[in-house]
């Protein structure tokens, strides 16, 4: 069974974010880049499916500039068999729809039985590409997946998705798309052998023209980026606990009108 995993390279959560000159993009100097955490759940699940079935291929794919090779290399070190890098200046301003169209074109070429993605990337937090891929491919899709099982014949996948008030379990005919939620698994750390082996694995560069795609303007346009306005300074309520608690309740009621 062939599984494609779409991943995104994002700044590490702890990284200080600054706005670049021009005010429309981030200043990438000094950023530590990681594979978006939800995407690691997707990679891990793909590897587990392959291991459980005893055969198959797991292909990692990502769109972005040269630095993205490092993220793909991490996926190869975890155990993915090969990687595809959508690397073209035509995609430098890609929004979710442009990204989804490029990834959908790769999926069409590779024709996997299953496409796994993370629930959302933790940079722009749009959480849209997985759904848009499903729509463009015309494949069924389960979002926020907490558990899954592929049937013995590799014809359907049973997936449990997190919904308001419960877990909804669906059968989806393959090929299908799943968006991994935290709780699906615990991603492995690459072993030293994995890291060494990853250096020999293929990362294929793909240009927009290779997919028959022309440059297209973004549908969602970033007008500007700014730091979140700082919260007004807070107040530490001093005094013994009974006094402080009474004062907190009074302040919440009378000053903040929060209760």
């Amino acid at each position, binding site marked *: 069974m062939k599984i494609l995993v779409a991943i995104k390279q994002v700044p590490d*959560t702890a990284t200080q*974010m600054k706005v670049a000159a021009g005010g429309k993009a981030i200043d990438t100097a000094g950023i530590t880049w990681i594979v978006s*955490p*939800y995407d690691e759940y997707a990679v891990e699940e793909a590897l587990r499916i392959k291991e459980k079935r005893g055969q198959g291929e797991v292909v990692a794919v990502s769109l972005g500039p040269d630095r993205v090779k490092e993220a793909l290399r991490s996926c190869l070190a975890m155990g993915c068999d090969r990687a595809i890098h959508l690397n073209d200046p035509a995609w430098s301003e890609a*929004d*979710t*729809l442009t990204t989804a169209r490029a990834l959908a074109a790769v999926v069409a070429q590779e024709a996997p039985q299953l496409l796994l993605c993370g629930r959302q990337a*933790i*940079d*722009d*937090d*749009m*959480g*849209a590409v997985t*759904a*848009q891929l*499903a*729509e*463009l491919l015309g494949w*069924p*899709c389960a*979002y926020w997946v*907490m558990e899954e099982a592929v049937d013995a014949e590799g014809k359907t996948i049973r997936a*449990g998705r997190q*919904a*308001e008030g*419960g*877990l*909804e*379990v*669906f*059968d*989806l005919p393959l090929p299908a798309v799943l*968006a991994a*939620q*935290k709780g699906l698994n615990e991603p492995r750390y690459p072993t030293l052998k994995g890291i060494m082996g990853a250096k020999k694995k293929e990362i294929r560069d793909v240009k927009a023209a290779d997919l028959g795609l022309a440059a297209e303007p973004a*549908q*969602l*346009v*970033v*007008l*500007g*980026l*700014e*730091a979140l306005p700082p*919260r007004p300074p*807070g*107040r*530490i*309520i001093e005094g013994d*606990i009974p006094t*402080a*608690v009474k004062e*907190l*309740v009074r302040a*919440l*009621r009378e000053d*903040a009108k*929060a*209760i």
Partner: protein
Amino acid sequence: MAGAFWCIVEDDRQGMPKKVMAEVIGEAARLRGGPVEAVWLTDKASDAGLRLLGELGATRVWLLEDAAYAPYRGEVWAGAAAELAAKESPRAILGPVTSRQREFLARLAARLGVGLAADCVTLAMDGDRLVATRPVYAGKLLAKVAWARGPWVATLRPNVFRPVDAQAGRAAAVERPALAAPAARMTLVERREEASTGLPELAEAEIVISGGRGMKGPENYTILEDMARVIGAAVGASRAAVDAGWRPHRHQIGQTGRTISPKLYMGFGVSGAIQHLAGMRTSKVIVAVNKDPEAPIFKVADYGIVADLFEVVPQLTTELRKLMEK
């Protein structure tokens, strides 16, 4: 004439729109960019629900009522909504951030070939266009975005937009467009309900009480649940508490959990790691109780008490109960 502002109805699966629709419909009306209409995909709408949408300010309800619309499946909803959008040419399509609308509106935007702005915290008309702001990079930055063309598709973060009051006497015309629900390929096997705590859901609660590593163990969350019952709050947890296995992941607040914006957030034994702040820093009022005066959460807190939570919580519950009984 400008097209309508569509508000996609989130319901309680029992035929009633959820409370958050007062925020979405209220904001759509405030923008004055076009007539406000509700679009409701459901297996069964109630008369009370239809009446409520009118009283909130929808001038029309597009009711797509068919057994195929429940449970929610993106492949069914997106096809039906896209067909209706092609006929009616709405100017904007808005919905609350919920697990299903996150997927649904992304699919619909792809189907229509237009942009999507998810998890918006402000919307404004700027001349002839809609401009939105949305937090990015763990809430460290705010992005201002606009659409290359319409319809403008956006999801709105709950508890951020001011809800409109229902006004008796306002009524919506109910339209039942003749659309066949697209065929579904995914089929529901089972739904496992969570044990009901009687407390509100984390994503839309107006008050959230959160416990972190300082709670010391799963058994101690009962003191937070006791307080939550007194003031009608939801109970959440930090990643540390979830990763320790004390609380289920669906209770996690933060970058790899839920993003919430309640009117009041109270954190007990929560240190305030960046990834937790990402999930709650847009709360209106933040209270922190922690033994460690250096805990980063005090930097974003409006009110802080530096003390042992196990001493503070029972007394606070008692005081809150007195207040509620008044």
